[in-house]
């Protein structure tokens, strides 16, 4: 352990160096004087004694130096000296440090934000014991992630790879606690859910596989910790209490641990109920309908089984089942990491990777910027550096000094950038899109900070490499003699030019790709919606939530419609189950001659709305041909549908389809009575979707269960007033479930948030890139020009024309600008194609736009060179020559 003692002693010295130096000096002096005394006592003269003493002692300076090395931590002391010197240097140029720090703060901040989001969504494992052997079991490729409950039970019975497989799905239902009803999001989960995850309850107990004895056999509910805190005041006496989900009683049996937020990455469920009771609550046949794929499956791998073996095992089971059950035709299975990280098609993952790339490019541009400024500074200091080299400083010491300065600046930038990134992340993590209680754990954790530090130091090293390399190659004699490093600037292609080239190229790339993307997105957002939202207010209620039986749902819908139409100021009213941009539902479409309703025979999936008469007038959707629903379209009469143009074209290849027929599932046969214009249904940027409108009065076969009803009213009254009136009168019709009331344009705005966010992020990155480009270009160009001032002065003194001087000054920068802009354009086009693929927007490679970007970049560069060039020729040659 003696090395620890030595290290401690060395460290402790660090803070009392001055005192110890004085002590050492005194000790050495005492030594020599004692020696002199002794020599004199032996009869030497004073000078003789002195010489003898010094000779016996050896070199005082060397002794002192080796003593110091032994005493302290020399590298630490050197580093501290370097840092102090760097601070002094930076304080001497008050313009440089803040500019550099801000530039880097932008670059590093952007990266920290993007990485935090990436970390929170993709890299963070689920918060359960041993998350690493938990895998998701999902269909391959386009087969979708979700599985049906009967299939799940078969997987559970047949597999040899998992100690257990759990299944869960998200449910959105009304919950009633102590007579107050509100909407909530929860999970319906298989009985073994908590056991497979390996969790222990914070209170009470969980439900288990042994609680399940068939349909509706386990009326239990486990609350999330947060829900328990917020809605039940964290009371320990809630066990055994009964709450109502869509009016169905469930008994609270436990509370989940505090840090467990379910197994989804975006939704934190309020509670978990056994899947055997989900059908009772939601009214949907979840439990034994093999074709109804709604469940997400996670499996715990057996010890010693690899994920690949599990995939093979599950795929073999899928093949068996595909032969066995018609509903499972074409079933494939694989295993992968849970969440967006494992899904190669996940749009969020793609968008994040795209943004990571952009953020990294921004940092690269910032580094190129700083490298050029730094190199310029080092070159201006070449005489100082040369003197240091000449008086015996090692090249490494001088290069290390520059490196210290750079890292100091970059750490400053990193700190500022991380600070702002934290602020931004705080805002982002509280962002909610509408009613959906999405949660992001994107607060920076230690991994993010490590990345921030690595990025800071890394970028510091990157932009200090060039000046350090210059110092390494400095010819001391030349540098001292001519006052600046002549060798570099007259070479045919200097390092500086390469930097300018990189800078122009990267910035053009960033500006091009962000401009093209932003343009694509704006185009997308401006696409016609196929509805007219002006003056339309929506009031949505879920009759299932309200506990209204299926048989009475039609009656309730009619009462809601009549009540809404009777409100003074309402000019028209209609209902639908869902409305575009407010919920969505769909059915699989089969052609008329289908007899086997299996996936292989399906035509496509279509969005389906179940609407009342007059819906198209209220929604402002144009009927292109045929007729609207009439009172004659009632139960018992032939079932009819109105379809949109995309539907008509995809099923029949034409829009003249009135009178043609198709099927949804076995008993449901529909005859087309009208065709309406295309519209957007869930996302303003979506591709044209096929849509079916059926008469609410007729229902869809036996599946007219009581579900959501959206009342659409048209009015000239202010939205607040109409919302109040709607709330007052409709709440008297349906008393047991909450209404959500909002204007249609608000609903659309809400659905545009992700696209807008992406547009803003890209726009901001483009703007940052442009700013970096401008400052970098100005800095670099004016530096290049100022370096040649003396040369130009001589040329003018010798009688060169202004125009000649100008030409020779501008020649090279312009060449570089053109090459850089071209390289950047090509890169930008490639990047845009990649982004279009990642964020899915119509890729419009717009030559005019690209030309504009290139032109603007070149103009900026030109102005940046022109201004210092003008300064160069307007200066008096005599004065210029005299000064230098």
């Amino acid at each position, binding site marked *: 352990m003696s090395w620890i003692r030595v290290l401690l002693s060395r460290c402790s010295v660090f803070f009392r160096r001055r005192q110890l130096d004085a002590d050492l000096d005194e000790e050495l002096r005492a030594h020599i004087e004692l020696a002199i005394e002794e020599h004199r006592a032996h009869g030497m003269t004073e000078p003789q004694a002195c010489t003898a003493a010094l000779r016996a*002692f050896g070199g005082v300076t060397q002794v002192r130096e080796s*003593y110091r090395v*032994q005493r302290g931590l020399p590298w630490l002391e050197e580093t501290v000296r370097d840092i102090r010197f760097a601070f002094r240097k930076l304080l001497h140029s008050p313009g440089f440090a803040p500019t550099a720090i801000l530039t880097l703060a932008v670059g590093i901040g952007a990266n920290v934000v993007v990485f935090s989001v990436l970390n929170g969504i993709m890299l963070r494992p689920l918060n359960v014991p041993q998350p690493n052997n938990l895998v998701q079991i999902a269909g391959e490729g386009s087969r979708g992630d979700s599985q049906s409950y009967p299939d799940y039970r078969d997987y559970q019975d047949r597999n040899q790879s998992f100690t257990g497989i759990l299944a869960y799905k998200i449910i959105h239902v009304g919950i009633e606690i102590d007579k107050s009803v509100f909407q909530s999001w929860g999970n319906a989960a298989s009985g073994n859910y908590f056991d497979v995850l390996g969790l222990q309850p914070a209170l009470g107990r969980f439900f288990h596989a042994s609680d399940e004895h068939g349909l509706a056999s386990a009326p239990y509910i486990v609350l999330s910790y947060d829900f328990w805190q917020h809605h039940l005041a964290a009371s320990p006496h809630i066990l055994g209490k009964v709450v109502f989900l869509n009016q169905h009683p469930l008994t609270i049996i436990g509370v989940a641990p505090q840090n467990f937020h379910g197994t989804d990455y975006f939704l934190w469920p309020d509670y978990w109920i056994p899947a055997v009771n989900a059908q009772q609550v939601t009214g949907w046949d979840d439990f034994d309908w093999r074709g109804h794929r709604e469940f997400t499956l996670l499996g715990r791998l057996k010890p010693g089984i690899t994920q690949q073996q599990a995939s093979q095992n599950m795929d073999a089971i899928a093949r068996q089942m595909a032969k066995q059950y018609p509903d499972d035709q074409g079933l494939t299975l694989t295993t992968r990491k849970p969440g967006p990280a494992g899904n190669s098609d996940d749009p969020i993952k793609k968008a994040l990777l795209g943004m990571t790339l952009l953020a990294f490019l921004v940092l690269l541009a910032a580094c190129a910027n700083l490298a050029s400024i730094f190199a310029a500074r080092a070159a201006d200091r070449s005489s100082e550096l040369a003197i240091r080299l000449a008086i015996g400083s090692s090249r490494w010491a001088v290069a290390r000094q520059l490196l210290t300065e750079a890292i100091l600046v970059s750490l400053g930038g990193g700190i500022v950038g991380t600070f702002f990134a934290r602020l931004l992340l705080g805002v982002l993590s509280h962002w909610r899109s509408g009613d959906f209680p999405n949660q992001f754990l994107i607060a920076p954790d230690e991994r993010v900070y490590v990345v921030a530090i690595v990025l800071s130091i890394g970028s510091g090293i990157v932009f200090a490499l060039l000046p350090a390399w210059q110092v390494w190659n400095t010819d001391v004699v030349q540098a001292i003699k001519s006052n600046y490093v002549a060798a570099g600037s007259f070479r045919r292609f200097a390092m500086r030019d390469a930097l300018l080239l990189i800078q122009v190229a990267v910035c053009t790339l960033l500006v091009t790709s962000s401009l093209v993307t932003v343009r694509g997105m704006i185009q997308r957002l401006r696409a016609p919606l196929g509805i007219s939202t002006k003056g339309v207010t929506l009031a949505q209620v879920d009759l299932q939530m309200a506990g209204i039986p299926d048989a009475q749902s039609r009656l309730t819908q009619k009462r809601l419609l009549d009540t809404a139409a009777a409100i003074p100021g309402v000019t028209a009213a209609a209902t639908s189950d869902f409305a575009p941009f407010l919920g969505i539902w769909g059915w699989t479409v089969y052609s008329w001659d289908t007899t086997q309703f299996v996936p292989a025979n399906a035509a496509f999936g279509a969005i389906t709305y179940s609407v009342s008469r007059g819906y198209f007038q209220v929604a402002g959707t144009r009927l292109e041909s045929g007729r609207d629903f009439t009172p004659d379209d009632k139960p018992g009469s032939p079932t009819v549908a109105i379809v949109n143009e995309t539907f008509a074209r995809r099923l029949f290849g034409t829009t003249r389809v009135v009178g043609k027929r198709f099927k949804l599932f076995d008993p449901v046969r529909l005859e087309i009575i009208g065709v309406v214009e295309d519209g957007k249904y869930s996302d303003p940027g979506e591709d044209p979707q096929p849509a079916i409108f059926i008469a609410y009065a007729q229902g869809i076969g036996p599946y007219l269960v009581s579900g959501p009803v959206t009342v659409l009213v048209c009015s000239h009254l202010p939205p607040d007033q109409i919302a109040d009136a709607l709330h007052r009168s409709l709440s008297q019709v349906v008393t047991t479930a909450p209404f959500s009331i909002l204007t249609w344009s608000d609903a659309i705005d809400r659905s545009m948030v992700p696209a807008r966010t992406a547009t803003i992020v890209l726009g901001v990155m483009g703007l940052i890139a442009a700013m970096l480009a401008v400052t970098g270009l100005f800095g670099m160009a004016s530096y290049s020009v100022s370096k040649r001032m003396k040369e130009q002065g001589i040329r003018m003194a010798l009688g060169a024309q202004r125009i000649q001087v100008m030409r020779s000054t501008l020649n090279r920068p312009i060449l570089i600008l053109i090459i850089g802009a071209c390289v950047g354009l090509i890169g930008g086009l490639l990047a845009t194609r990649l982004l279009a693929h990642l964020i899915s927007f119509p890729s419009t490679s717009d030559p005019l736009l690209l030309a504009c970007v290139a032109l603007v970049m070149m103009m900026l560069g030109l102005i940046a060179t022109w201004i210092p060039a003008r300064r160069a020729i307007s200066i008096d040659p005599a004065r210029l020559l005299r000064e230098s």
Partner: protein
Amino acid sequence: VPESRSDVLQGTLDLMMPKTLESMGPLHGYGIARRTEQESENTVSLNQGTIYQALLRLEQRAWVKAEWGTSETGRRAKFYSLTRSGRKQIAQETENWERVATNMARFLAPSN
């Protein structure tokens, strides 16, 4: 250069100086240097300055401790003395040296 005088190995100094302190009691740097030279009967050539680094090394390992005091001629000087752990170390180091020396002697002995 006379053949008999050899350069001092670092490790040698680390044992010689504590040994000197053990026999002489507290001493200042010059005293230690002189004493070491005398004891080795001038067979070791010593740049007296180098002992300070060696003394510091011993101090860092806490074998010796240093205090300011006054020399016999009335000069202020730093006096070094052996600590308890220093004493223990001497015994152990001596043993080490003896073993090495015996081994070397055996190795260098003319073989028959």
